[in-house]
């Protein structure tokens, strides 16, 4: 048996999704010793990577639920958060569209719900809606409009939260799944393949696996059920089709199929909401696609599936309580569950994190503000968004910005190097941070070049560069290797 490294921290966060990273950053404002443990090669690769990226308005949620408690306040925190962390965020507004009289009545109920909470919502007539969004189905009757709804790159946000947390002293351990956990006196112990970690408080932000982690402690009062959502992403040429995020009137089960302009402007359609057997069932399906296309076209008829460039699926962590679970375990002292954070978890995460601070204080943990907390991370240069003059200037300062690597999205070598220096370790890590390979050719041209840069920056061999961590190597053999093997055999 290998000797595992032993260490001891005050607070261990298990799971580096949007919830875990938000909590890490919030806690980094205090003089605490915090470690975030993530099973994947980078943070943000669970449900956080694969969702609609909508910063919800806060008018959907049923009153009295934790979803309602955190969603609207979360929404209100986004502008400042994304400004501080220099993350792409656009308040493009949300429209919930009514296609018949009955739906119009429902829309009015949501209006009421929103207004009660103080959400900035109003009703728009058919003419007003079509003026705002001329490509919508012309037969609609009207819509609820929430101008403060927005769109964010969720992975970019999680990565930025982590980067800023590290800046402020949080430690990160990746590629270390917690495989066992137990209580030792007033300490909790977490075991990973390489470490044994003692912590005073464990924060369970393990997403889909939150119930599994709880069960490792012998805590089994809730379960997590996986519910899959497929999404289909379009080329940049769809940029001007709609500006706002378009919602239908929700069903009892889900918010329905949406038409979503990403924070970069290109469209995405989805998601489905299908109960699945496996927590890691990330397959896309023909059936899912046809339902999504039908739903999206009932809102925006001119959507052209030939412009789709990519698709993916994410899995929601639905709890047995049908709501978020944000509480100290009634069974294991010092174990804080942030579980069942399904939609609108991305929106709610900043508010949940703020509440965690309060809960820790209430639990008697000494929370001493860090006087030198730095809320900002170093600014990101996004070459394609600069004016020609600025581009010229940036290249003069650093010639690596003059070498365009990803031609479809105009991403430069300078940006890729910067992404790696900020923590990207893999092709997906680079793609989700700076969009190299996220465009219409899907990395066909730039993938070998990006691999070369990652290999150079990390000092690892070219063939060890992975798509998303060990086991996902793109390249398996050197030229002639298979032939020489054959000869040897």
């Amino acid at each position, binding site marked *: 048996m290998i000797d595992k490294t032993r260490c001891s921290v005050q607070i261990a966060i298990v799971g580096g999704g949007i919830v875990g990273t938000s909590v890490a950053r919030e806690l980094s404002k205090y003089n605490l010793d915090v470690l975030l443990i993530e099973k994947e090669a980078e943070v943000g690769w669970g449900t956080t990577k694969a969702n609609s990226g909508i910063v919800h308005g806060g008018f959907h949620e049923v009153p009295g639920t934790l979803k309602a408690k955190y969603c609207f306040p979360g929404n209100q925190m986004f502008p400042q958060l994304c400004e501080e962390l220099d993350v792409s965020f656009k308040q493009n507004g949300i429209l919930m569209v009514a296609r018949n009289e009955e739906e119009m009545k429902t829309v009015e109920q949501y209006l009421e719900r929103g207004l009660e909470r103080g959400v900035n919502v109003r009703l728009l007539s058919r003419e007003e809606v079509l003026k705002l969004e001329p490509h919508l189905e012309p037969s609609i009757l009207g819509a609820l409009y929430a101008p403060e709804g927005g769109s964010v790159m969720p992975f970019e946000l999680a990565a930025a939260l982590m980067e800023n947390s590290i800046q402020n002293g949080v430690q990160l351990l990746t590629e270390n799944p917690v495989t066992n956990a137990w209580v030792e006196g007033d300490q909790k112990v977490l075991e990973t393949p390489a470490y044994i970690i003692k912590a005073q408080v464990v924060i369970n932000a393990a997403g889909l696996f939150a119930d599994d982690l709880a069960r490792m402690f012998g805590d089994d009062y809730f379960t997590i059920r996986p519910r899959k959502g497929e999404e289909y992403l379009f080329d940049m040429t769809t940029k001007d089709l709609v500006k706002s995020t378009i919602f239908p009137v929700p069903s009892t089960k889900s918010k329905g199929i949406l038409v979503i302009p990403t924070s970069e402007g290109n469209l995405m359609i989805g998601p489905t909401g299908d109960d699945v057997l496996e927590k890691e069932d990330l397959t896309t399906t023909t059936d899912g696609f046809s339902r999504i296309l039908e739903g999206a076209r009932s809102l925006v008829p001119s959507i052209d599936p030939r412009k789709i460039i990519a698709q993916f699926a994410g899995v929601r962590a639905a709890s047995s309580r049908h709501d978020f679970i944000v509480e100290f375990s009634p069974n294991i002292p010092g174990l804080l569950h942030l579980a069942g954070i399904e939609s609108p978890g991305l929106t709610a995460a900043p508010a949940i994190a703020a509440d965690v601070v309060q809960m820790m204080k209430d639990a008697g943990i000494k929370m001493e503000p860090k006087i030198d907390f730095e809320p900002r991370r170093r600014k990101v240069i996004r070459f394609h968004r600069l004016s020609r003059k600025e581009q010229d200037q940036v290249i003069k300062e650093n010639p690596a910005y003059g070498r365009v690597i990803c031609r479809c999205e105009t991403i430069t070598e300078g940006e890729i190097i910067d992404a790696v220096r900020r923590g990207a370790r893999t092709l997906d890590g680079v793609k989700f941070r700076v969009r190299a390979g996220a465009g219409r050719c899907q990395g066909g041209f730039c993938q*070998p070049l990006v691999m070369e840069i990652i290999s150079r920056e990390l000092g690892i061999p070219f063939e060890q560069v992975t798509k998303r961590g060990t086991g996902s190597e793109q390249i398996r053999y050197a030229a002639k290797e298979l032939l020489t093997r054959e000869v040897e055999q």
Partner: protein
Amino acid sequence: MKVLTADTAVIGGGPAGLAAALTAKKQGADKVLIIERNNELGGILQQCIHHGFGLHRFKQELSGPEYAQRFIDMVKKTDIEVLLETMVSELTPERKIYAVNSRNGMMEISAKAVVLAMGCRERTRGALRIPGTRPAGVFSAGTAQRFMNIDGYIPGKKAVILGSGDIGLIMARRFTLEGARVEAVVEVLPYAAGLTRNVVQCLEDFHIPLYLRSTVIEVHGEDRVEGVTIAEVDEAWNPIAGTERYIECDTLLLSVGLIPENELSTQAGVAVDPVTNGPIVNESLMTNIPGVFACGNVLHVHDLVDNVSKEAERAGRFAGRYALEQGEDWKKRVKVIAGENIRYVVPHEIGLDEPVEFFMRVQRPDENVVIDVGGLRSVRQRSIRPSEMLNITVTPEMLKNVTGDSITVQVVTLKEAEVRA
């Protein structure tokens, strides 16, 4: 910002750009400029290390890099300027080009004539929406080709290839020669999409099975591809239940079509033909923007580089002429219509004073046919296939017979008696 001028600026330094620049130069233009984003000229030919290039042009079987080198050498003998590792980010209708590189930063290049020669890209898995997981090990055939021939690595040792386009067929052979196994080539059409000679030399000679009317319906594997499910399809390309078959593999290559890269062109306002995905051009290969010409795979996807060079020389000649302000005095414009069993014809519009070379593809395979070019010229063909581009030249002499304002190009199937005669 660095400000430059050129008589003819060629965007793209592949075979099309090289040939266009050379002929533009021959027209007497003072300053011809090639802008290329790679670190060398030659374009995609540099990774095509197999033989089969130049049969028509040089009556010799060259490799891709050899073919390219002949043109690169010719360019080097001239004073054509070359900007490497330089990316054009914008083209304006007034023929201003904005481009960046590490040495000069942002450049503004005013050109009297512009030749678009940016080539094409491969269709992706995402565009096809192949269901299943999204592991490592799924590549477009050209990307795999680059990994093998430029970087010196082999993606995997057991591959399935979806699509029987030429790059896929070439890669089937390349994998086999490297000691990897190609389990299957799977094609949705009832016939191979690539050239017949590639089907024979790359699949049949190596006993690699080709499954027609079939497709990949699911990708398996979490981190790395572990297998694919293939199935036969019906007329509407829907999988037929009961025909599914699992094939174990660690690599899936896609050779499912090429798309001309016209994002730069459309931004400038160049009108594009929805069938070719390339610009609409006249017989001088000029687009709807005066002084902007197009050739090679950015205009329409070719199967032989020899044809690309030929087409590019035409574009270069007229671009060079335009730069010297001699162009644009055609008397009559005639539209060219794709008729029976013709998928497309380039050029889309012609004048009547110059010889015109028509490039075209058919919709379906057929045998014993005549290609009728608007009643001006008929060419008999024993066999036609969508994969094999046809080219037919029409002389000004023949063009005298044009009466209306359009001509139709069509395939006429010969009756048995006519075939024998």
